[in-house]
């Protein structure tokens, strides 16, 4: 009898833990198409929405989407307001010191300059970038005049109205814009930055990280990840 009680208690505890663990909250920015954006129905949509849902299905997790400002996306993960970041975040050493990354779900992909004319001086001109991105850090080091804006939208606007000669951002973000607007074009060579995009999790959350790692690996293995990348045109595909 006693044994039974103990095991019931243990079962109840495990069930409680499983229930608490079951909901995994995914944090994203919701302002970076095609990676993640809010669609007309007010839902998070985009490559990462589809990817995240598929990963959660494979890992048998119950996932919920949360949007958070880009600036505070890491502090809020670290203090436990959601459990993983899936927001087109490039894997960098700086970030890796504070959080852990899963393996990348897109290969390292170039950033690119978008400008109004072919003969932009990329080394000495005025280059716009979003504050706090790896591109902003790169421009500051390159010697060009860095012009920082809070949102990606404003960086494009700055090029259109002549405040900046070019903008440096992820090529996948710029490509649909360049397609739409005949005045804007890619300038110069692509710049390889970052180590691909991965999901960010807390350093103490090794288990969750392993779960997502395995799910990403299984999607890489059966080719479904490449298909998704092609569908959303976010980057090159894995070999």
């Amino acid at each position, binding site marked *: 009898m006693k044994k039974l009680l103990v095991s019931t208690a243990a079962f109840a505890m495990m069930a409680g833990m499983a229930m608490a663990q079951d909901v995994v909250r995914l944090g994203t920015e919701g302002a970076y198409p095609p990676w993640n954006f809010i669609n007309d129905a007010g839902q998070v949509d985009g490559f990462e929405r589809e990817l995240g849902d598929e990963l959660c299905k494979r890992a048998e997790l119950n996932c919920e989407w949360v949007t958070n400002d880009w*600036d505070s996306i890491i502090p809020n993960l670290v203090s436990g307001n959601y459990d993983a970041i899936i927001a087109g975040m490039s894997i960098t050493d700086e970030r890796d010191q504070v959080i852990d990354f899963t393996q990348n779900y897109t290969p390292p992909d170039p950033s690119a300059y978008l400008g109004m004319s072919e003969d932009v001086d990329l080394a000495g001109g005025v280059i716009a970038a979003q504050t706090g991105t790896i591109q902003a850090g790169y421009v500051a080091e390159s010697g060009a005049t860095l012009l920082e804006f809070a949102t990606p939208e404003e960086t494009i606007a700055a090029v259109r109205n002549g*405040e900046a000669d070019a903008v440096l951002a992820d090529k996948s973000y710029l490509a649909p814009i360049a397609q739409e607007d005949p005045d804007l074009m890619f300038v110069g060579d692509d710049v390889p930055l970052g180590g691909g995009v991965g999901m960010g999790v807390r350093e103490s959350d090794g288990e969750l990280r392993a779960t997502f790692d395995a799910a990403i690996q299984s999607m890489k293995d059966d080719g479904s990840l490449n298909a998704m990348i092609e569908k959303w045109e976010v980057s090159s595909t894995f070999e």
Partner: protein
Amino acid sequence: MSCWQTVQDYALRSLGYGERLLPREGYTLCEHFTLIGSGMIWNVYFGAIALFAGFFLATVVALGKGARNPLIRKPSEWFIFIFRGSPLFIQFFFAYFLFLSLKSVSPFFDAFTSAWLGALIVLFLNTAAYSGEIFYGALRSIPKGDVEAADAYGFSGWRRFRKIVWPTMLRLAWPAYTNEAIFLFHSTTLVFFSGFPAWQQRGDALYYANYFADKTFNPFVPYPILAGYFILLTLVVIALFGLVNRRLNRHLPQEARRGLRLRLNVIR
């Protein structure tokens, strides 16, 4: 690297002197204090100049709002209403938009899209509207006897304004005006945060605090440092305004002076 070296490298970084690249690793406390302190130069610059220039416009607007002629009164009223009625956040947005479009009209406006001039103009207009309302309130509460006495002494027009109305208005408005000054200095943190782009990583104190928070992902160090700097700045502002207040009230008997000091806290 010693702290003194850091100070030499970064103390004037916000103006573009010293080390070109911001610190990229380590992020010592010394670097935090130096760079955020360096950014304070801009906060003081925006606050001090906007306050000084705004003071004169505020006087004009306050007189305008009190004028009988609707051609003078209405524009003053609308000016105060619009700038007091909307968030600074939105004012910066529209100002930047406006300056951008003016720029395409004439190269004369080139400098206006830079924070040092464009944001300064917005802050100047903003504080002029807020102070204008304070001064207007003070104008209305000038004791009737003071003005009657001035008339009896044969003062009129400019002399009456300069010698009687204006000093009394200032005396009455000073406590509230002190608070407006504090608020203005606090508002200067919005310049690079939402309104104007930062050039070459030259920004104000909040910009650098944000930079550190972005790199270390720890908001609990840079923002409290920023807060500390602002508490100091606020204390300085209160002290300076207190000195002026003493001078404005120097003719009053000791008892009455204390009475005015007590009222310092009434508004805001």
